[in-house]
């Protein structure tokens, strides 16, 4: 076993144990906590947006203190709506969806699942979390400076994002803070991905071949490969954007641009260049958001079905295919950007191809579930909810992938519905499933099952109620990123928006059940046995819950099996742990 790992001594001081910790488990929890703060902030922003859309003149309590110009008397101005929307998207995509399923759970469980004592580079790991934290602080600072956060959307399209203060409130300091924050986030992400890849390739314990790694470990590994190359492109893009803003360069700003009655002193830049650079990162980014959730859900389902998937190897190959193809489809975000229409065909084809591995995965899940006698608990319910949302949200992608249809649907609520269902709901359901499943291992206590089921059903119904009508709205021509619906063709849609707003507030309230459950169970939850789910992977063979400092109590596990020996007669029941040298008996 690797004595070349930078094994570090157990920390003793509070700061070393819980603040600047080198322990991957603490770092994982820190990422989870940061994602929790970010998701609550993002959700509150979305409630403000939803309320404003339906009651445009209603004062939002407290908002007037945050921004006197953006929300005088608490009434959101159109510009401030866009500013809130930009921060909502940025927080959710970067600080929630990249952090929670990947950095949080991956950091906590990847080393344990491969039998390692820690990540390959614990100090890089600590640096990557605190760098993410700094990026978060820089982003949040945008709320409190000048005229507030930027309004150019989480996509930060040039030239609006590049010209500076003339483009509107928040575009002076706020946009620069956004660019710097994302640049810092890229550095943190690259460090994290490097760690995941080196750990997975080099720190597997004896007997743990690549083919014996659980699906979720593969998912984290593939995600880190995608993430490494994607964030390495966003970093120079943000650099060029910030240079355009503060150094007078013209990478993205064309000549003669009249913004806010000023001719901008730039020339020759290409706004399309920003879109290319951004979406070359941006499309792999959405697969970075979904692949860990796919892995988590598959892993939990296998455990609860008490039998393997029809082919878990094909699931892994599908994840690899998705990762590979994700780099070829970025232009499908640019069908209406003015590019040569032939390029639309070139991008549409791999976009439709990418639906194939996604469909294969869905069919494998459904085919494996059929006749499987799935154990129903909060975790497996959220897995089923994930599949439901992945299909519902993914199917609209088939339509958007075709340029002819996208001409109409681009920048409508149809697109918003699509990505919210796959990212905002399905990926989050994966995070919920992981939380309910791994909570006993992280804390030694079980989460309350009744509350978990209420949480699931209210969330499932609520999110369908919110996001299904988005598709109808999009087809009816409802443009996205509008702060008010005053046009003739939009006014009749306001009742639909009212329904969505009520559903959003209701679903948001339902998440309080989860927050309460998390906190209550942490202190008062029923004590968990060592392996409450009777799962075979290595994290369930640690000597204690939570695992000891070096994960396995001074010992190094030896792996004798692939990760999904379920439905077999053994001394432990109907499963055999990966670390058990027991010969497998008859299949049940």
């Amino acid at each position: 076993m690797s004595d070349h790992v930078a094994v570090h001594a157990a920390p003793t001081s509070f700061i070393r144990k819980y603040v600047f910790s080198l322990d991957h488990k603490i770092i994982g929890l820190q990422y989870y906590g940061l994602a929790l703060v970010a998701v609550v902030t993002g959700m509150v922003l979305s409630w403000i947006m939803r309320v404003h859309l339906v009651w445009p003149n209603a004062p939002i309590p407290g908002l007037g203190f945050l921004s006197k110009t953006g929300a005088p008397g608490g009434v959101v101005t159109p510009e401030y709506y866009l500013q809130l929307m930009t921060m909502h998207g940025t927080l959710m995509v970067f600080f929630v969806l990249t952090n929670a399923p990947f950095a949080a759970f991956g950091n906590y469980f990847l080393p344990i699942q491969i039998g390692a004592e820690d990540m390959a580079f614990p100090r890089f790991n600590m640096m990557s979390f605190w760098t993410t934290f700094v990026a978060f602080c820089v982003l949040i600072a945008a709320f409190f400076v000048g005229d507030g956060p930027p309004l150019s959307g989480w996509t930060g399209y040039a030239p609006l994002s590049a010209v500076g203060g003339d483009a509107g409130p928040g575009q002076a300091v706020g946009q620069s803070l956004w660019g710097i924050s994302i640049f810092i986030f890229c550095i943190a992400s690259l460090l994290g991905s490097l760690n995941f890849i080196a750990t997975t390739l080099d720190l597997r314990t004896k007997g743990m071949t690549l083919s014996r790694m659980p699906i979720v470990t593969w998912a984290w590994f593939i995600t880190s490969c995608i993430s490494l190359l994607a964030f390495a492109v966003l970093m120079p893009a943000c650099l060029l954007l910030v240079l355009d803003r503060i150094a007078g360069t013209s990478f993205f700003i064309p000549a003669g641009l009249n913004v806010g009655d000023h001719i901008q002193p730039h020339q020759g830049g290409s706004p399309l260049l920003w879109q290319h650079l951004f979406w070359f990162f941006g499309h792999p980014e959405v697969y970075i958001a979904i692949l860990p959730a796919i892995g988590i859900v598959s892993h939990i389902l296998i455990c609860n079905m008490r039998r393997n998937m029809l082919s878990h190897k094909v699931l892994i190959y599908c994840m690899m295919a998705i990762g590979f193809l994700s780099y070829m489809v970025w232009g499908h975000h640019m069908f209406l950007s003015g590019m040569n229409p032939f390029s639309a065909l070139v991008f549409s084809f791999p976009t439709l191809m990418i639906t194939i591995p996604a469909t294969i995965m869905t069919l494998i899940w459904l085919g494996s579930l059929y006749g499987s006698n799935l154990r129903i608990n909060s975790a497996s319910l959220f897995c089923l909810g994930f599949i439901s949302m992945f299909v519902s949200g993914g199917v609209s992608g088939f339509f958007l992938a075709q340029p002819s249809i996208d001409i109409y649907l681009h920048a409508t609520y149809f697109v918003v519905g699509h990505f919210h269902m796959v990212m905002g709901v399905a990926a989050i359901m994966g995070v919920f499933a992981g939380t309910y499943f791994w909570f006993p291992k992280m804390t030694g206590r079980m989460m309350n099952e009744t509350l978990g089921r209420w949480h699931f059903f209210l969330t499932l119904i609520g999110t369908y109620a919110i996001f299904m009508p988005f598709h109808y709205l999009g087809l009816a021509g409802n443009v996205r990123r509008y702060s008010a619906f005053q046009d003739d063709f939009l006014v009749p849609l306001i009742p639909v928006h009212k329904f969505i707003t009520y559903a959003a507030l209701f679903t948001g309230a339902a998440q309080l059940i989860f927050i309460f459950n998390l906190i209550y169970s942490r202190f008062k939850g029923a004590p968990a046995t060592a392996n409450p789910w009777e799962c075979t992977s290595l994290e369930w063979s640690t000597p204690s819950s939570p695992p000891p400092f070096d994960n396995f109590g001074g010992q190094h596990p030896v792996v004798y099996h692939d990760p999904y020996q379920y439905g077999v007669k053994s001394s432990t029941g109907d499963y055999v742990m990966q670390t058990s040298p027991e010969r497998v008996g008859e299949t049940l």
Partner: protein
Amino acid sequence: MTTILQPPQAELDHEPPQRQTGGPGGNFRNLAPAGGDLRAIADRSGEPTRTGIWVGLAAIAMTFAALTSALYVREGSGYADWTHIELPQILWFNTLALILGSITLERARHRVAAFMRNEEHDRSVPMFWLNATMALGLVFVVGQYLAWLRLRSEGLYLPTNPNSSFFYVLTGVHVIHVLGGLGGLSRAMFKFRSATHPLRRSTMDATSYYWHFMGVLWVYLMFILWLKL
């Protein structure tokens, strides 16, 4: 239907540890005891530092690929303000310094390896080559700064025209990474001389791979700058 257990691929020279019965949760006594003799199971895992450096270099390569494509798009942006700038002659000297630095670093790496194999007992020979590399690296950095000063003296600043913008961005991003390489090199040199934090082979190798990559990258950038700017 009986399924036969597939043992680990390498030969065990003793019986697998006795399975201990435990609760239905499966328990940690399945683990091999710390004193158990498992040397015979081949540990084929690599060095994380070696893997890590290649992964890091892949990311850096991707960054420069993005900047290169930005350059090509900007050139063809249709505004036709793409001009031509004369590359300061000192760049060729800097290139030579960086390449020489790669050569001295390779000498240093081999001497360090010989020292670690106890073939050499004198630290001063490897230290000489390490110091030479550090000096050449600093020459490169100073030379880059002089190149910038030269461009400034010609009135070419960062925003002056797209060519100068890309010149500063490409050389600036590269020199930041070179400074990182110098930091890594000084850390390796510190460890080489330290009794309490000895230098590992993998760290020395990783430092030198990074350095050579910076050299190769610079040659590529020189080509692009010469071709395009």
